[in-house]
């Protein structure tokens, strides 16, 4: 091994180690039945939500682009990935674990790619708009996509349209969800602390000044938007293969608000906050389902908005403000 390879290998090890430790621990615990399979599933859902929220944090938190269409990209990723595995898993006659895994990985990438491609197409015209107008345009895009999902069966019967898409293989497991999350964290952390990331933050802080410093603001906005949406697409692919059923209402514009709330609650441009808020959000929703007596179950959605309003009144800059976990900080300031 040459000297130049050493840091590279070290970095790979740094990425694989937390993944292996976390998923190993969880797999061990669930195999020994210490963990209820229901909660394992919720944990995976939390990972998926975190991936999607990290993507939105890149778009809104770091680049300052107000996007209300995140769920649409999540949906595009979910449908693309589901369609891929439906078409190709077992298509070559072998059901070997390796081949299925490879197809699944491919379909996740395809989901992310489709979302990114669409984001690029949508972003090119709309990212010229500013602040609230961009929000409205992306919100409109989200609703258009929902209408298209509802009518999807008229182009491709497999997609199911308003009745929902069924018969998706259940491929997402703890290793996949954790791997996705670790990848998202690492990629976004490294991106944010690179020259690209600093250009994005500069655009958020002051677009005119950023342009004056020689940053091609429009190009970087498209890059930030596309990258963030790609993560939503991957998260969607994982989601599709976790619950094995897709329905257009899951990708409603209201779901975009859910992700937005997570990002804002955690603090804009703060990855720690997004991670904590995603897990807190998913576990709180499910926890209340268990904790509340059945006759008060409707109170869940009364309490959550109240909690949200109170949090915003008390900490308008998000739960974590500008504090980050050490491993998410830039090396320069560490």
């Amino acid at each position, binding site marked *: 091994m040459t000297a130049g390879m050493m840091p590279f290998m070290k970095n790979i090890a740094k990425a694989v180690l937390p993944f292996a430790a976390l998923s190993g621990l969880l797999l061990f615990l669930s195999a020994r039945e210490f963990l209820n399979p229901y909660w394992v599933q919720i944990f995976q859902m939390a990972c998926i939500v975190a991936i999607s929220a990290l993507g939105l944090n890149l778009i809104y938190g770091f680049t300052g682009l107000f996007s209300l269409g995140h769920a649409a990209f999540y949906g595009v990723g979910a449908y693309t990935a589901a369609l891929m595995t439906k078409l190709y898993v077992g298509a070559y006659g072998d059901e070997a674990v390796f081949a299925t895994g490879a197809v699944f990985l491919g379909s996740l990438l395809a989901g992310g790619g489709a979302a990114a491609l669409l984001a690029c197409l949508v972003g090119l*015209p709309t990212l010229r708009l500013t602040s609230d107008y961009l929000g*409205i345009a992306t*919100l409109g895009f989200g609703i*258009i996509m929902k209408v298209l999902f509802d*009518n999807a069966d008229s182009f491709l019967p497999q997609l199911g349209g308003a009745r929902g898409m069924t018969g998706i293989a259940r491929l997402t497991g703890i290793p996949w969800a954790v791997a996705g999350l670790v990848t998202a964290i690492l990629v976004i952390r490294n991106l944010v602390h690179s020259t690209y990331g600093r250009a994005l933050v500069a655009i958020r802080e002051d677009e005119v000044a950023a342009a004056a410093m020689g940053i091609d603001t429009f190009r970087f906005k498209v890059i930030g938007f596309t990258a963030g949406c790609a993560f939503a697409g991957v998260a969607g692919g994982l989601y599709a293969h976790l619950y094995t059923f897709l329905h257009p209402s899951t990708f409603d514009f209201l779901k975009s608000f859910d992700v937005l709330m997570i990002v*804002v609650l955690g603090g804009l441009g703060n990855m720690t906050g997004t991670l904590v808020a995603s897990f807190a959000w998913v576990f709180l929703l499910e926890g209340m389902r268990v904790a509340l007596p059945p006759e008060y179950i409707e*109170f869940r959605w*009364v309490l959550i908005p109240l909690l949200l309003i109170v949090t915003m*009144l008390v900490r308008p800059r998000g739960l974590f403000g500008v504090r980050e976990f050490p491993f998410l900080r830039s090396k320069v300031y560490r």
Partner: protein
Amino acid sequence: MYALIALGYTMVYGIVRLINFAHGDVFMVGAFLAFYSVEKYHLPLPAVFAIAAGGSALLAVVIERMAYRPLRNAPKIAALITAIGVSLFLEYFTALHQVFGPNYYAFPRPFQVVSLEIGGVTFTNIQGIILVATLASLGGLQYVVYRTKVGRGMRAVSHDVVTAGLMGVNVNAVISFTFGLGAALAGIGGVLYGIAYPQINTFMGVMPGLKAFTAAVLGGIGSIPGAVLGALIMGQSETMTTAYLSSTYRDGIAFVLLIAVLLWKPTGILGKARTEKV
């Protein structure tokens, strides 16, 4: 009818630059107040309108005082998230069995439907009432904004909050009044909705609210004639889509239109372009 809701959005946005997501739910509360006053107390129609408008206005003022005012100097996104929170809270709180309940209710028709045919086009008296009520509210609004003292205050605050405050405008009172006035219009819209489409539930505000907001943006947000124009365009395009294409595409077409207009004129059809200063 979109026009009435759109007006509330455009006024609030024009003054505090906040997309008030709870507006659609205020509209819903207006419809429910009307429902109860007709169903339980058999009040005459003018009283129903007054109760719905007054109740909605009161609700909006309370929301503004409790949730938005403390955040006025906070980052804009905090207020926006709070608005979404208020919206969700109103929807799910009123859907509780102890409040309005989660079911659909049939809105009682306070009068008989009469159809009239003029020159081959059929009108119903419901459409007539909607038209008259909309025009009346619009006229009233124009009067309030351009001919009264509080209206002058509204325009001043919309132009520059700090300077307006220095000039002796009671900014808080003006903002409260704007929320109230917008909500009163939404409440009237709620009654009209109940009369025109006689079925209401606690989530009915979401789509009309969103479309009304879209209409406001389409026409140029902050502009009163723009909101009405945008609402007319929205209503027409939806009806056309249902008639000529397919009703399943109805919700999408409005937003296709919106994106097209925004790309062509980013501040809406009647919106004024604001040059950005460094």
